[in-house]
């Protein structure tokens, strides 16, 4: 009887040790987790720049709800390529009928991919939608994508 009791205590201790160690490893990994590389993320939506602009123009509230925080694959023609003072690129897609753009700021890991691009070229990019800047400053409205990489050149 005592032998059985000792044995079960041993198993309980072992189980607690395994649970404790697993929790510690999980907590450590979770704490140090960095953002996933956008290149390895499967997009939630694949859409042309003109189509997504039309959606936002028609109903920005519903579109913000639908697309924010989602991985988007955008196909379109690059209107402009902005390069800031630190060399970070932003690719801009616009349509000709309204004052709205998709602005895709390149992920720092993938930033150099944009250095060979040319304006007016068809391209496919992937990024995370972080929201919509509605035109309040007279500069046009912008759908914002962060952590962008080139998915098809």
């Amino acid at each position, binding site marked *: 009887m005592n032998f059985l009791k000792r044995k079960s205590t041993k198993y309980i201790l072992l189980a607690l040790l395994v649970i404790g160690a697993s929790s510690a490893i999980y907590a450590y990994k979770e704490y140090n987790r960095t*953002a996933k590389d956008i290149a390895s993320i499967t997009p939630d939506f694949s859409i042309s720049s003109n189509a997504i602009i039309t959606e936002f123009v028609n109903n920005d509230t519903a579109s913000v709800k639908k697309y924010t925080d989602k991985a988007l694959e955008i196909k379109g023609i690059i209107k402009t390529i902005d390069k*800031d003072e630190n060399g970070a690129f*932003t690719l801009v897609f616009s349509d000709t009928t309204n004052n709205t753009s998709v602005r895709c700021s390149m992920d720092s890991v993938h930033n150099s991919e944009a250095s060979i691009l040319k304006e007016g070229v068809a391209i496919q990019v992937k990024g995370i939608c*972080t*929201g*919509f800047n509605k035109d309040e*400053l007279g500069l046009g409205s*912008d759908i914002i994508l962060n952590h962008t990489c080139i998915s098809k050149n």
Partner: protein
Amino acid sequence: MKKSILILAFSSLVSISFAQEKYFTKTGKVSFDATANKSPEIIKGTNKSTTMVLDSKTGDMQFVLQTKGFEFERALMQEHFNENYIESTKFPKAEFKGAITNNATVNYTKDGTYNVTVKGKLTIHGVTNDATTDGKITVKAGKVTAEASFVALLADYKVAIPTVVADKVATSAKVNVVCALEALKK
């Protein structure tokens, strides 16, 4: 004589059009540091998609950013920032509307660094407060850069920090704004 008058008139027109010029960016940088004293963990986020407009004639300035655009070193930090502290889904943007109070001292057509005072209303987490800060405007080869640093008390913007992380997250955030502006062509 006629020629001189014409040249003078043309120069005046040019200077008026320069004075009326607006400057803007859509790639402005706003970063904050809310690391508590002595904490080994750095609580720092950067937004690189800030839109800003500056009217060089009046000194009026405005910037707006999407709070989900802040990037952090650790993904968990970013999630806590968006979900628990700033509540980015409920309050998606932060903005500042104000003006340079000593705009007359800035010559936007002459290279130099000008110390300015900016006064206006800052909205974070759906709460708007009066804000005044010192900053500088740098003019170099037709490019204008607006910079400012200030401290925002989190309690003023109803951002609650749970006691369990109080040793890591400070009660205030040091905010740094750097916007390299370009002339707005109409």
